[in-house]
Every structure is written in C-alpha cells, then in structure tokens.
C-alpha cells in the first residue's frame, strides 16, 4: 500500500485530526486506493509544462491604502465559543 500507517499518523498530526484504530485502518486503505489511482498522473511527461496556479492568469489586483470602518468588538466576539468581554480565549498549551 502506498500510504503507510506511519503516514496516516504523521498526516493526522499535521491536520490536527485523530482517528480510532479501526478508522485509521480504513483511512489507510481508502487513501492508498485513491493515491494508487492518482498515481496515473505520473504517466504524463510534464517536464516542459509550467504549473498553472491562477486559472485566468490575471495580474496586479490591488486596493488603495484606505482604512474603513470595522465591525464592533461585540460582533467580532459574537460567535466565539469562549471569551471575555474583550478577548477570545483558548486553553493554554500546557494545562497546569
């Protein structure tokens, strides 16, 4: 299988996701099948092809340096799951 269980562990850490052992096995299997399928792209000779990043290949879209009214702090905090009157809150990196 092209995707190893170590790959699954490493990628889930990067993506901040966790899976049960069963889920991991299924995921490894699914990802391997999909990657196998995707490997077909390696048939193509792409040595002289420029990558396409921006589909309309447009350039130089700017705005002028002008400030505009922002939302209120109340609005900014409205959707926050944990907050004080003025700050968003998160748990510390290490809990004491």
């Amino acid at each position, binding site marked *: 299988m092209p995707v190893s269980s170590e790959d699954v562990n490493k990628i889930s850490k*990067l993506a*901040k996701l966790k899976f049960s052992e069963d889920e991991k096995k299924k995921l490894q299997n699914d990802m391997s099948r999909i990657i196998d399928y995707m490997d077909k792209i390696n048939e193509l000779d792409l040595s002289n092809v420029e990558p396409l*990043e*921006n589909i309309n*290949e*447009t*350039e*130089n*879209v*700017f*705005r*002028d*340096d*002008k*400030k*505009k009214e*922002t*939302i*209120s*702090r109340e609005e*900014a*905090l409205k959707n926050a799951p*944990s907050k*004080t009157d*003025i*700050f*968003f*809150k*998160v*748990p*510390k*990196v290490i*809990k*004491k």
Partner: protein
Amino acid sequence: MQKNILEKYQPVIGLELHVQVNSESKIFCSCPSEFDAEPNTYVCPVCLGHPGTLPVLNKLPVELCIKTGLAMDCKINTKTAFARKNYFYPDLPKGYQITQYESPLCSDGYTEIYSKDIPLKKIRIKRIHLEEDAGKSIHDLSESETFLDFNRCGIPLIEIVTEPDLNSPEEVSLFLHKVKQTLEYLEVSDCNMEQGSLRCDVNISVKLKNGNTTGTKTEIKNLNSFKNINDAIDSEIKRQTGIIENGGKISFNTLNYDVKEKITVPLRSKEAENDYRYFSEPDLVYLNISDAQIEELKNSLPESSEEKILRFKKEYSLNDYESEILTGDKNIAEYFERTVNNIKIKNYASFKLAGNWIINEVLAILNEKNISIRNFKISPESLAKLLNPLIEEKISRTTAKEIFSSMPAEPGKFSDIEAIILEKDLLQVSDKTEIEEIIKKVLDENPNELLLLKSGKVKIMNFLTGEIMKKLKGKANPKIVTELFNKFIKK
C-alpha cells in the same frame, strides 16, 4: 565574553527581520493598521478568517517592499506570487499565513556597515518579501487560559533575510542600526522595537577561526530590543562553545531567549518540528511589476543617509562628525535644514553655528528627556529666531542659552523672541564707553589683582574679565571686552 573563546571561535550569524510597514490599513483588508487600539476593535470578518472571506492586497506595502529592496541594492523580481504557510496557532486565524515563498519581491542585495572599529563590510541580503502579521497571544492574564487580541492580525510585514555574513554581536548591532536608519529614511516603518514594529530572529553557529567548516546553526526567535539581541547572541555563543569545548554536538534547535535568566532556552523539539506545506495562494493573483514601475519607485526614493552626509559636508561645510550626527536620524536632518532655511545670514559660519547648537543643545535635551525630535517643543523656525540675533552678535551665547533653556516649558511664549530680547533688555552691550566704565570700575575695586597682573600673573586676567562680565550681566560682547581690557592694561 571570555577572551580566549572569542580568539578560538568565530560566530556566524544571519538575521531574519520582521518590520511592520507604515500603512493606514492592513495588508489584506481595510481594518486600520494601528498599534495601540483597544483589544479586538480593529478586526473584521476578513482578518478574523471568517468563512467565505477573501484577501485583497493593499498596494502600499508592495511599493514600500520594493523601495526597501531598491535601497538595499536588491534585484526586484517582476513576476511574483503569494503562498500559504500552513500551521495551527491560536493567533493565526486562517490556519495559514499569507506570505511569499518561491518568489520573493526582492532578492540578492546587500547593505554596508562600518564603524571606527569595524572596517567597511558588505552584508548580503538574501531576500525581502511581504507577509501578514499574526494576532497577539496574552499568556499572563489567566492561569489556565490564553487570551487573544487580533488587532495586529493582518498588519503588513516586510521580512528581510540576510546571508550569514555577520560575525559578532557588534556587527549585528551595527547592521540593525543601519537597517533601522534605512527604513526610517524610506518611511517604510518607525522600527520601534519596544512596540514590536521591528522584530528579529537570529540564526547562529560557531566555527573554529582557522577552520572552514561551519557548525550546526540554531535559531533564536522573536527578539525585540537591541539589548536582548546582543545579550541573546552572547549567551548563545557561550552555550554553543561550551557544548563544543566539552566534546558535545550542537543540534538544530529553535530557542527562546529568557530575558530574566539571560540564557537561550531550546523549545521542545515537538514544537519546533513542522511541515508548513507551502503552496501558491489561490485567492490572490500574480504580481507583475513592470520595469517602468520599478523605475518610478527608484526615482521616488528619498536621499539616503550616505548621500545626505556628502551633501551636508558640501552644502553647509560641516565636518564628518557634524554631518553624521545630524543625518543619523532623518528627522534631525530635516530639523537642521529647516532651521538653516530660517537663518537670515546664510554663510558657512552660521550653518556651523546652527548645526552645533542642535548637536550640543537640542540633542542634549532629547537625550535627557528620552524623546524624539518629532516630540520636541521648539520648532526649527523658533530656534532660528533665537539663533539669528546670536549670529548677528546682538546677543551673547550666554543670553541665547538662557533663553533657550526656558523655551521648552512655554514654547508659545517665545513666538516673538526679538520682542522678548528688547523687553528684557538682553541686547548685547557693544557700546564701548559703557564697557570702558565698567572695566575701570572693576580695576578700581581690585587694585591688588591689577598689581599681580602687571607683575606677570596672566592667570588673574580670567578672574578680572569674569568680574567685568558679571557686572555686564553676561550681555557684553566678549571680543570687545577683551580688546578694551588689553588696551587698559597697556595704558
């Protein structure tokens, strides 16, 4: 630092500087780009990373980044793009930072440093690019939680990356001052380290002086004062040479500098390890800067400090020292030139007098009060009004100093200095008969001293002229006093 260590090892240092750009609005949204607002008041759905929002690039930071590159002799890369740097951190709302990766706006430049102790040296600039700042994590308001303020999030940053061409804390300091001066001259940034508008990461390794293999480097993150940078480098050199001297190996590490303990502390390797998965930012389009635009920006570059020094020497006949001091800060140079513009008698002597007055009197007050010239209460126009009568020898230096020292308290009161001089009877006494009378009086009052002087004790002359000046309340033209006094003695 122990001398023998420095004789044996040479530090190899590269810097990554993050400079907050002076702009009215943020780099990808229209929120105000200001430093000290109430927490979470300068935010919007875009910089908070709300679903569905998109970045739109502010033109000004692009221009300022290019100007910085031009001032540092960089190649300006006409076709560039933005990239996403992916990592999770609470003060990074989108889970990625928009930055430049494969194609920075500027690359391959240099800047020169020198001092009395360090001969002229080129420090190569690897790249200069644009990116967005993150928000602020506040760790000390609660035991268990971190508080977040996103006002800073999206403030435009210019990142300047050097090659590892610096070899001592002194060179680093010199380089930083040079960069700071350049950025201030270009009006790119105020480079206020205390407020975090200039931040520095240091890459550092040591090598044997006579060897040519460089050791493993470490990276000290987020230093925010000249002193901390200097101390952190010192302590890291000590740490690295200590390990090597004891037969150990340096491992690649990211470190924090502990200001209290004055030591560099490696972060847990888990925090350091990352895979940022850079890829091109699909929400922004390519930048394609034309040669004509670059030319235009080049022509708009303000005079550099070097150019200014040369001009000051030529135009105002100032010496090296005077020119360097007066151009060290762009605002001081401007203050000087505005003063000179208001001086009535324009000649080298009056330029020099004005320059030295600023160096000796104005800068002393700024240092004493620890303020910048922009916050100095006496305008260059007012200073010129004070210096004009001095240059014209209408008032004495002593009088001028007296007036000057009382000006900052009530700057408004001194809008018409000439009137004050007249009102307070401060005009310099140049009337010879009046002075002669005083001399005569002083000599009459001090017969013994006069005898001593005549017997050859020349030093007593200072005492006598002092007494004369006292009686003239400092208003006499000292040249005339000396001249008349000598006449008297010879009689």
